[in-house]
């Protein structure tokens, strides 16, 4: 008995520690499904609270009964003989019917919410084709069924807008997930899945609070872990100016600058085999790597692995296979299997050029 209560105390402490670490980690910015920023995630969070509540009550009741039996009917000197009880028809019926009612009550709310989140309340304000690659996300903004511009790993949308997404893959299955905005929908070759979301909360003082983390949730190969993206929610006017900027062709670097040297590297080192830059390369679709036209304006690179700094970009170009092993992007450091042997100066020039593409 002593040992037992000690064990229980240790287990209790461990649980307390868990809760404490969960609370502490709330200081970090988790993409928590319980911190919704739009109606879909909000409805899904309500369902979460409902099932947690019901599960907690059932767990406490059943465990209490279990512990009561364990303590009360433990064999001890002078304990009564066990009653040779075979069962009880009425009890069986009660504990079949009660969970049935409870579960079908939950099912009612489940199905109601399913239909609630399935369709948006009004027609879409913007439409984006989401293309899952191994291992990065391409966002193809649509207008009247045509491509307006494309970007990578960064989805922008105005606050309160209904955003309609067409989910496309020509390779393996991915799953598109923005925990604080919407649950996931799989991106399956040959299936034209769609989803929608709407961001209703907005912090005008700190734009960082309007950026939501998203990720691929379906195992899609070696670098499934590194297929993240962000969703940037903006005011309508900020969004409009972002769109205007994204529709421009790439900026031309000043003659004789380091960036101009970088452009040269871009054109000669084989980058064009996989990457497009509007105004520099011929306009083709379906290339292997992201379109880099406004590369400098993006917050993340390498499929959401790295923040977009000159140092990170240098590492990425120079030795992508070390940063993200297995990715299609080859090394350019002259090592075995690399696609070229660029000097550090050349890579620095290329970095300067790409970062100038605002």
């Amino acid at each position, binding site marked *: 008995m002593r040992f037992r209560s000690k064990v229980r105390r240790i287990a209790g402490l461990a649980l307390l520690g868990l809760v404490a670490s969960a609370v502490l980690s709330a200081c970090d910015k988790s993409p928590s499904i319980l911190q919704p920023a739009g109606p879909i995630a909000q409805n899904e969070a309500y369902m979460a609270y409902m099932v947690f509540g019901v599960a907690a009550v059932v767990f406490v009741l059943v465990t209490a009964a279990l512990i009561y039996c364990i303590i009360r009917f433990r064999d001890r000197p002078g304990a009564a003989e066990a009653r040779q009880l075979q069962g009880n028809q009425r009890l*069986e019926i009660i504990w079949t019917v009660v969970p049935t009612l409870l579960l079908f009550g939950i099912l009612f709310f489940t199905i109601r919410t399913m239909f609630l989140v399935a369709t948006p309340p009004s027609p879409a304000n913007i439409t984006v084709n989401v293309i899952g690659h191994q291992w990065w996300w391409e966002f193809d903004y649509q207008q009247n069924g045509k491509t307006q511009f494309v970007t990578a790993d960064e989805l922008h949308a105005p606050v309160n807008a209904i955003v309609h997404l067409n989910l496309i893959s020509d390779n393996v*299955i991915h799953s598109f997930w923005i925990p604080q905005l919407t649950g996931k929908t799989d991106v399956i070759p040959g299936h034209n899945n769609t989803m929608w979301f709407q961001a209703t909360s907005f912090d005008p003082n700190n734009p960082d609070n309007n950026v939501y983390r998203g990720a691929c949730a379906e195992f899609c190969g070696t670098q499934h872990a590194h297929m993240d993206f962000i969703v940037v929610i903006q005011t309508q006017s900020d969004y409009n100016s972002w769109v205007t900027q994204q529709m421009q062709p790439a900026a031309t670097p000043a003659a004789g600058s380091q960036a101009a040297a970088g452009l040269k590297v871009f054109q000669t080192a084989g980058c064009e085999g996989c990457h497009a830059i509007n105004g520099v390369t011929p306009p083709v679709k379906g290339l292997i790597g992201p379109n880099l036209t406004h590369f400098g304006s993006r917050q993340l690179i390498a499929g959401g692995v790295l923040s977009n700094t000159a140092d990170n970009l240098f590492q990425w170009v120079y030795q992508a296979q070390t940063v993200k092993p297995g990715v299609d992007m080859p090394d350019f450091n002259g090592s075995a299997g690399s696609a070229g042997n660029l000097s550090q100066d050349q890579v620095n020039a290329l970095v300067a050029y790409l970062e100038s593409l605002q």
Partner: protein
Amino acid sequence: MAVGSIATRGRTARQTWKQSKFGSWVTTTDHKKLGILYVSTGFIFFLAGGIEASLIRWQLSTPNAGHLSPEAYDQIFTMHGLTMIFLFVMPTMAGFGNYLVPLMIGARDMAFPRLNALGYWLLFFGGIFMYASFIFGSAPNAGWFSYAPLTEASPGCFTQGVAAMSAQAQAQFATQNLQLSCFSPGQNPDFWIIGLNLLGISSLVGALNFIVTILRLRAPGMTINRMPLFVWMTMITSFLLVFALPSLTVASFLLLFDRHLGTHFYQAGAGGDPLLWQHLFWSFGHPEVYILILPAFGMISEILPVFSGKPIFGYTFVAWSGVAIGFLSFTVWAHHMFAVGLPTVAQAFFASTTTLIAIPTAVKIFNWVATLYGGKLRFHTPMLFATGFIAMFLIGGLNGAALAVVPFDYQVTDTYFVVAHIHYVLFGGSVMAIFGGIFYWFPKMFGRQLNETLGKIQFWLFLIGLNLTFFPMHILGILGMPRRQYTYPPNLGWDGLNLAASIGVLILIAGVLIFLWNLVRTFMKSGVGMADDPWDAFTLEWATASPPPPENFKTIPTVRSRRPLWDMKHPDKADWLTEGH
């Protein structure tokens, strides 16, 4: 004359080999020896799968750790799942079934002893085949579910050496690869396909053998309604295997055809459909979950009554809720697929069937608790594991029912929440039941008892370790951590919880080491005069010597109730005096 003598000598030599210690195990068709072989093979794979689990938790203990390469991580997490499901839980349950079913129903052996041996050796070589893939660096690496088209390739993929190409040629090849669906040109999926089919045949012949044995070889008076619940659950499991495995066979052969014969069953670009794989796989995969847990229900339903000193509460309800689960398990497969974009009405259907299957599961839990009520509970190690099972499986049932709440599932499917769920079911459920079963039936199998103190310490280490490992995973899922990631970034609130889970594994490892020490100690001890019925049990397997003679029973007993041994020991209050039929 000369020829004859050689032949005679040959036969004698063979007979001695068969009688030798090693040869008698290799050539045996005795269900008891095969049962022990199954359980020990399963246990060795449990250790292998445990090492893989430890590597996974080592890699994930801190953010951006580099202990394992992404490729190694993928192979290890895939093999962990395959091992624990197909090479540990299934063989161990089949082993207990083999050992116990003939004894429990009063038979001399299984109906088809040679088929029984075939089943074991297919498992043995199937397991070795799967693990041989590591030697070629090609262990399966796309998850135990191995979704197409990630596992796809076409015959054209295998002919070109990618590494030797120039960058431009590589780029061209990559585009061309998309058309050919060359996502897995290595042999990894082939090991998966062929390995699982070997194991599938093993399970299938085993299942057929159980069905015939249970339906045809019961002792006089052992009606279906008097069978021990472990026999009931083994029978239901066997029917599930017979009806579920063909779906896996079909799915995997179509993939094999795609990869090596140039068909396109799962290749969308050529008119196939990747979702076909998921429907076929989960039509097998969900019954499979119950294949892993129903025998555990059976074990618990044997252990709880004996250590409570009273019959199981609501025998009929426990048995028939198992049957209900068996039927319903074939109607819930698409709850693994709520995120694939099925029509909302179809999703509502599968949410409803999943809700239905929770009801018989709840009924079982209530009956187990009620079995304790009014009893005289003896907390030997098997009983600790059995009561621990109820509490842990309860959590696995509740977080499973939560996953039937579709809008919640949209959020947590493919996250660590689901990892928490399956491990509460399979570790908190199946593994706790298996260790309870090992401690309970060990004296039957070997005529000696495992040490109780070490057993109890192991139980508490398991209980604490599994909760510390798997409970934080619920929170990780809610905080947005997808599963099957070889690493994760810092500052997302995931670090502490992952570290806690990894520390939990250390506690589990300590538990396993104590069990190994317990085994060694027990086998080192020279023969102890142990009673044939050390637990004061109820069922026929304890009505014979421990370990039983090759023919099991001197005379086949006649059965008059569900607790034949209780009747023998308490003729004045025998069950058949009061049982209402």
